[in-house]
């Protein structure tokens, strides 16, 4: 009976139903599209995970394994396991056409056990193919970026260290690469056997080594992984399976997806706001009928049940347009995001995405309706006896009824951001922004009622109407303010990011960054720099080490669990499992500020000090759980070094100066084996290229990063990423406008007789339109103005506290957005009201009958 009642009423109020469904589905579209894209990516990564790892199992480290470790490793694996070995490291490639930092991948004949490399000549390189000419001759395969950047092509000669090679082919498709956007250096494939001739890997050089394994049939990867972890106890040695390799490779895109998810939540929030508003109006028109049903014997609980059923039914129906809208958005989203992956992604709406959508829509509709459904319990059917007009606007306010909605959004945010911290920050900021908009909006509408001296009646009464109908006005205000805030944040952040990296003559950002410099190379480098009249910015020693103990406790390897992990957990596991780069310097650099603790007491004095002093970068300390006073024991090339954290530092990483997570007091590591890092100050382009080529030719093992080019690449990637974010923000804004349209339309419908009454009192159609438009134009202007102003504050806070970069305010974008939002709001108000403005005032008489 309840279902029949619910359906019958919905059919009768089909316009309300359509608006509700439309609102909800627009909000869900971004969410569902992103879900579908992520699933497609995950499926693709899973399907290609063995190709990404190019093996069943890999033992990876940033050092050579000892003989003992190698023996144990081989023993732990099942008989019949095949083994390969590859090295990866940065090096300078030189040629007659210029030099460039590249990532050298030195492989052997077994590479790749899985997947393939597709070369431009049409060759497909697999484990068993015998077309690997780089193994037979002095040849190399290069990534196509080197063709576009340096003009290199097949047949050209290149030099890597002491090694002279000929390019035999260009790589068209590399199955081991998953995130293409911001790679620091293009890859070059060479024969591992030629490494010793290159002279590139010297003591202290940074490289990654991977022993790749092809397990015999029937062997279980996870068991083999566990056996390897049992024998390889050094936390710096990582054992990777296809599953972990897939997870790692999807992570970078995952970060972007996290933020897209949060923007999608804003769209969802706005649609929930609109749906709630429409639902409130719908329910208020039904209160009299509910009261009548109550007199006929319907219990309050049953009445609530009817409307819960209705809300759920509407949610269920909202999945249909959501799916349709998502099918429109998905190709666009996958085109933008898909360009960061080598996969040919064809995402579709999967059953999982549909089920999530269904759950969200049904549960969301229910949660949104709770605050209003509880009013049914306050309903006094006795009011039907009253000779006054029936009114259902009374009843106590139950603020807790909004709590389920808040909790739902909170968990959604954490789920989307994969982070309790970011999810909480996001929801906290949203609440603050909404509260700020509510306060500003309330003051605005109340102040509007006090405006005097207006000579046109429609101005005067518009402002009065705004002030007296504060609830409805505030809903519009918040929706528009949020929209304005959203579209302004991204461009503001982008502005500041671009300003941060602006290369002007006076820029402090270096143009070249050098690493892997050996002690004995300094005199030669200094000579070149002197000749070129360049003074290096700073030179910092780099000492490889690993943490053995923290406060007396063994610092153990953290094996990543499967299933839902927050980004913080992932990060902690990664940081724990990798070696540390330590450095030392007498005083802090320009890009560092000590924020807690005391400075170093001077050079280390073993007679007076029991342990060395340590300075730790504050965010790193935060991630690792380090604090001042903690005692860390490092293994520095076999020697134990004990240190105590005496201060925490803040580092401006965007300065591109040599900086480190951990600095050790001067005098402790000075004799340890080390390499050096240095930076070259800003130089004009020709001078920079010239210097880089000279250094690359003379010191082939020294890796040089062209900071200008790298930053340019980063900015281009950020630009590409921001398109996808803007797509989501656009979706949120469209949702905001649909919400606005729904609210304006509902309000105007509710005030239909009032508008017609104005006509009967002598107002012309134009004056009635002006009456409505004045209200919404004023609201839109103030809301977008404050939304834009709040966006400046939020961008400032994000820049200062999260990205720790300098904030650059741009007035143009916010002001343009205020004009556009006000204009669009006027248009929408006009469209929503045009038929009522045009209708004959006669309807007021007809409604009476």
């Amino acid at each position, binding site marked *: 009976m309840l279902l029949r009642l619910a359906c019958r009423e919905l059919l009768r109020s089909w316009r309300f139903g359509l608006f509700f469904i439309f609102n909800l589905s627009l909000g869900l579209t971004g969410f569902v599209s992103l879900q579908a894209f992520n699933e497609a990516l995950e499926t693709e990564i899973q399907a290609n995970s063995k190709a990404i790892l190019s093996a069943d199992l890999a033992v990876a480290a940033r050092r050579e394994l000892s003989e003992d470790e190698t023996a144990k490793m081989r023993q732990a694996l099942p008989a019949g396991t095949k083994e390969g070995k590859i090295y990866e490291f940065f090096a300078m490639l030189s040629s007659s056409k210029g030099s460039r930092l590249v990532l050298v991948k030195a492989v052997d004949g077994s590479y790749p056990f899985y997947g393939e490399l597709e070369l431009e000549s049409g060759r497909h390189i697999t484990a068993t193919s015998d077309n690997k000419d780089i193994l037979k001759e002095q040849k190399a395969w290069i990534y196509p970026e080197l063709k576009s950047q340096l003009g290199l092509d097949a047949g050209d000669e290149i030099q890597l260290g002491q090694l002279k090679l000929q390019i035999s082919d260009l790589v068209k498709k590399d199955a081991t690469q998953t995130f293409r956007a911001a790679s620091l250096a293009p890859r070059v494939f060479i024969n591992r056997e030629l490494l010793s001739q290159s002279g590139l890997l010297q003591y202290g050089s940074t490289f990654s080594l991977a022993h790749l394994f092809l397990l015999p049939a029937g062997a279980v990867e996870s068991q083999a992984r566990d056996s390897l972890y049992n024998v390889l106890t050094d936390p710096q040695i990582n054992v990777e399976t296809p599953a972990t390799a897939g997870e790692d490779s999807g992570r970078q895109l995952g970060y972007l997806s996290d933020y897209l998810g949060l923007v999608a939540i804003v769209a969802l929030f706005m649609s929930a706001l609109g749906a709630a508003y429409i639902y409130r109006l719908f329910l208020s028109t039904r209160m009299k009928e509910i009261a009548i049903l109550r007199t006929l014997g319907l219990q309050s609980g049953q009445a609530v049940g009817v409307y819960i059923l209705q809300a759920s039914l509407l949610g269920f129906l909202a999945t249909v347009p959501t799916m349709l809208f998502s099918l429109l958005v998905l190709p666009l989203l996958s085109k933008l995001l898909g360009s960061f992956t080598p996969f040919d992604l064809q995402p579709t709406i999967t059953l999982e995405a549909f089920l999530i959508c269904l759950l969200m829509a049904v549960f969301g509709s229910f949660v949104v309706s709770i605050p209003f459904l509880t009013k049914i319990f306050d309903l006094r059917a006795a009011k039907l006896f009253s000779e006054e007009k029936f009114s259902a606007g009374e009843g106590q306010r139950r603020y807790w009824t909004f709590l389920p909605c808040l909790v739902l959004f909170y968990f959604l945010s954490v789920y989307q951001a994969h982070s309790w911290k970011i999810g909480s920050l996001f929801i906290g900021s949203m609440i603050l922004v909404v509260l700020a908009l509510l306060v500003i909006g309330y003051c605005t509408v109340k102040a509007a009622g006090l405006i005097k001296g207006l000579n046109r009646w429609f101005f005067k*009464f518009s402002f009065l109407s705004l002030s007296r109908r504060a609830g409805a006005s505030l809903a519009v205000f918040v929706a528009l303010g949020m929209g304005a805030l959203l579209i302004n944040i991204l461009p503001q952040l982008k502005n500041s990011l671009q300003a941060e990296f602006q290369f002007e003559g006076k820029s402090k950002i270096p143009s070249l960054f050098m690493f892997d410099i050996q002690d004995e190379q300094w005199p030669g480098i200094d000579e070149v720099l002197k000749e070129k009249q360049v003074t290096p910015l700073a030179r910092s020693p780099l000492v490889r080490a690993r943490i053995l103990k923290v406060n007396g406790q063994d610092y153990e390897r953290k094996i990543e669990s499967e299933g839902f992990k927050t980004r913080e957990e992932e990060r902690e596991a990664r940081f724990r499992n990798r070696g540390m780069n330590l450095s030392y310097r007498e005083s802090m650099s320009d890009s560092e500020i000590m924020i807690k603790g005391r400075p170093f007491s001077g050079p280390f004095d073993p007679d007076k000090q029991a342990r060395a002093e340590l300075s730790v970068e504050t965010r790193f300390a935060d991630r690792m759980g380090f604090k001042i006073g903690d005692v860390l024991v490092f293994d520095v090339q076999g020697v134990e070094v004990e240190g105590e954290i005496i201060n925490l530092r803040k580092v401006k990483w965007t300065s591109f100066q040599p900086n480190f997570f951990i600095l050790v007091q001067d005098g402790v590591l000075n004799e340890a084996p080390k390499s050096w890092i240095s930076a070259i100050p800003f130089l004009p382009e020709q001078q920079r290229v010239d210097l880089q080529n000279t250094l690359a030719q003379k010191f082939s093992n020294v890796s040089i990063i062209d900071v200008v080019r790298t930053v340019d690449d980063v900015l281009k990637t950020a630009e590409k990423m921001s398109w996808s974010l803007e797509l989501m923000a656009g979706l949120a804004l469209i949702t905001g406008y649909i919400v606005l349209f729904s609210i304006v339309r509902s309000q105007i419908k509710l005030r239909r007789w009032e508008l017609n*009454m104005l006509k009967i009192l002598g107002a*012309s159609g134009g004056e009635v339109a002006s009456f409505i438009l004045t209200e919404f134009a004023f609201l839109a202007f103030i809301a977008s103005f404050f939304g834009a102003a709040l966006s400046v504050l939020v961008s400032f806070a994000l820049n200062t506290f999260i990205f720790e970069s300098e904030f650059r305010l741009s007035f143009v974008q916010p002001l343009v957005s205020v004009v556009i939002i006000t204009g669009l709001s006027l248009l929408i108000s006009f469209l929503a009201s045009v038929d009522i403005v045009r209708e*004959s005032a006669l309807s007021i*008489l007809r409604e009476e009958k």
Partner: protein
Amino acid sequence: MSLILKDVRKGFHQGDAEIQVLKGLNVTIEPGQVVSVVGQSGSGKSTLLSILAGLERADRGEILVDNINLTPMSEQQMTLFRAQNIAVVFQQYHLIAHLTALENVMLALEILKMENPRERAEEALRELGLGHRLTHFPSQLSGGECQRVAIARALVVKPKILLADEPSGNLDTHTGDKVMDVFFDIVRKHKITTLLVTHSEALAKKCERTLRLEEGQLREA
């Protein structure tokens, strides 16, 4: 202001069938006369009021107000003429909920750009015995008080013709009588030509003349 109807006809289409509601009305109402129109539900009383208020066009015939023919007027001309000469009182008051009693009355004056709207609105409300309710919202007023505000709003612009549609229909007999007594006092005092549509024979008897709308024709009762 006199009101003359000459062969006014109005019909509606219902599917393929055409229903003639008004079948040639002919009547002359003298300036300042208070006339009631009675008739059964569906007899066309509201249609007659709509046509007189210029909210609806007659299919045929002429409506003359002080010998000015309303029939050929454009929508814009009609709106202006109505605003300056005709006022309407509704059964359900139709006060604007978020405006106070005073603001509701002032609104009518401000739309017509009349001078001293506040003073005139206050005076109108006082005349109807609502001097102590000026700043109250409709939700804070009783039904009788709301109807008196609606009457004040209609009369404050000094209309030449007043059209009233069941003004006491929503009120109990006692309140209705009190409101209508004030209503009649004022329209007579200001000599406003009034057409009052009602079901109440008793109310009709208080008017100087009663017309019965029956089978699409107006007859003297």
